[in-house]
């Protein structure tokens, strides 16, 4: 009886938890998201610290050690030109992860600008911007990305640019939808009635309310961008040799005899793509549970 009373008092006096604190707690309780976070940090660590972790170069050929199976010297063996596979995987992580980050930053920027203008202005502006978005969405994204990448010429930077410039429509739609509902709310009307400028309403009042859904979309966007870069490089339209990326390492192993007899050349980079994408998807799932508990998927 007394303890119950005491705890009630404690509850009543302690500061109410903010939404962010609650969200953070939900996120850190999410087991898969924690697994994803730890794995992702490990991947980032090995790619950043690659020169400290391995004595080999990812690019210099060593013709005396071609196509060697895994040994104590080369933990994951060597590729067709004698380069250490593990070293290349570490360095490739730099490329694959940064392509994911940079391209999503581009698409996020475009998507947020177009989506917020369309959603806030409504009417003809919205109509025009959404038809434009529809147009971009009408191409299967991989098909149009392959075509543009081929037209611009294959390189790391073009891969970032192409993926960024062609994946914004989904973010634009998401932001627009949020703006459409938020702009009719009391606090926005209040701001408008005291003469706050459009830009300030968009960025100070509405935008902060959309951040949680954008964060979730962006996380899944990074996973998707890594997959797209891998596909592009696999087709020879992304990162070019000798720079390693997980995708182009798989490209080098397409012949049937490598596929059959030298699995150390293609299994590890493929697994790395899967692991990176999987852990980012886990983080995205955790963020969604934490920030947007109403969504069912």
């Amino acid at each position, binding site marked *: 009886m007394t303890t119950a009373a005491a705890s009630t008092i404690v509850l009543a006096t302690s500061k109410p938890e903010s939404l962010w604190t609650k969200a953070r707690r939900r996120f850190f309780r999410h087991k898969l998201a924690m697994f994803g976070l730890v794995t992702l940090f490990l991947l980032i660590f090995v790619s950043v610290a690659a020169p400290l972790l391995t004595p080999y170069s990812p690019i210099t050929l060593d013709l005396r050690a071609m196509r060697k199976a895994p040994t104590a010297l080369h933990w994951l063996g060597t590729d067709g030109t004698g380069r250490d596979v593990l070293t290349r995987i570490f360095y490739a992580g730099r490329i694959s992860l940064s392509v994911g980050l940079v391209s999503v930053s581009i698409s996020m920027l475009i998507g947020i600008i177009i989506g917020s203008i369309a959603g806030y202005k409504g009417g003809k502006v919205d109509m025009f911007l959404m038809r434009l978005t529809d147009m971009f969405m009408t*191409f299967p994204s991989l098909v149009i990305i392959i075509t543009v990448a*081929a037209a611009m010429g294959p390189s790391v930077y073009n891969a970032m640019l192409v993926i960024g410039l062609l994946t914004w429509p989904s973010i634009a739609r998401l932001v627009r939808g949020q703006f459409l509902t938020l702009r009719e709310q009391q606090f926005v009307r209040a701001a408008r009635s005291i003469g706050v400028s459009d830009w300030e309403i968009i960025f100070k009042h509405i935008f902060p309310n959309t951040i949680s859904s954008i964060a979730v979309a962006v996380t899944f966007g990074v996973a998707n961008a890594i997959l797209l870069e891998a*596909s592009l490089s696999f087709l020879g339209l992304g990162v070019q040799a000798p720079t390693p990326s997980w995708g182009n390492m798989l490209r080098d192993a397409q012949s049937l005899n490598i596929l059959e007899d030298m699995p150390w050349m293609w299994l590890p980079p493929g697994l790395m793509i899967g692991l990176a994408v999987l852990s980012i998807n886990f983080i995205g799932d955790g963020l969604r549970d934490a920030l947007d508990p109403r969504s069912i998927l």
Partner: protein
Amino acid sequence: MTTYILRRILISLPIILGITIIVFLLANMMPGDAVLAMISSDTPMEADLIKLRQGQLGLDLPLYVQYGRWLGNLVHGNLGFSFQTGEPVARMIVTRIPATLELMGISLLISIILGVILGTVSALKQYSALDYGLTLFGFTGISIPDFFLGMILIFIFALKLKWFPTSGMVTAGTDFSWGDNLRHLFLPGLALALVRTSVFMRYTRASVLEVINDDYVRTARAKGMTEFVVIARHVLRNALIPVITVIGVSLTVLFAGAVIIETIFQWPGIGLMFISAISLRDSPVIMGYVLVSAFVVLIANLLTDVVYSWVDPRIRYE
């Protein structure tokens, strides 16, 4: 209903026009000269001859004139001619599209059946070990690149176990038989299907969970119906409506995925044609393929909306 469909088609028209402009500009951005690509590098290049050939192909005209010509031809079903072989692009697409449709069809079938069954099981046993296992499988499915999955399948089932052929659509040098064709179809079909399976599974699971506690389900149970009938006739009937929209989106993704899978398995569909056209800078073929891909998406979206409003009378098409 008819007015709804007609209006949807009318709305699509400006989008289609915009698409043709984008496709045309893209093809013109392609580096490399089509005429130079046709000449082998060891023949002497006569400047006049190159000019002449460019004139014959209309490549020296202003861009908007080229676009106008191209669009005019397009309306008549003429997609131009391959720079490489001189074959009409429309015919190239028509002869190769059945292979792609076969691949996409079997993948869609596998992924819907597997996805719906696994998703329903996962929802009915919510929070069980099985549910967690399937969720994990779902995440893995959307995280593995389809080309890597294809390589794994080739490695295990074609190279090690030798159950299935590694590539192609039929065994070379033999007469066409369905059995042989299906054996070739199995691995690429599976590789393409698995990613979609996890998507269908996750949507079905969420959707079943939404309706499983509704009154009509409880009523059905209270009437003493067997669990199977309750699930199949009452739960799934409503739960699968949102899943239909996913099928529409899936067609787009399958179409794009087929490009990669066809390349790995040397499946002679339009995806393989597209990739080789990309490496040969054969822009009429590329334009033709990209246009077809956009039309597939438009039609898939239209069909989805129509089917959606047809199966769910609660949705009014206004």
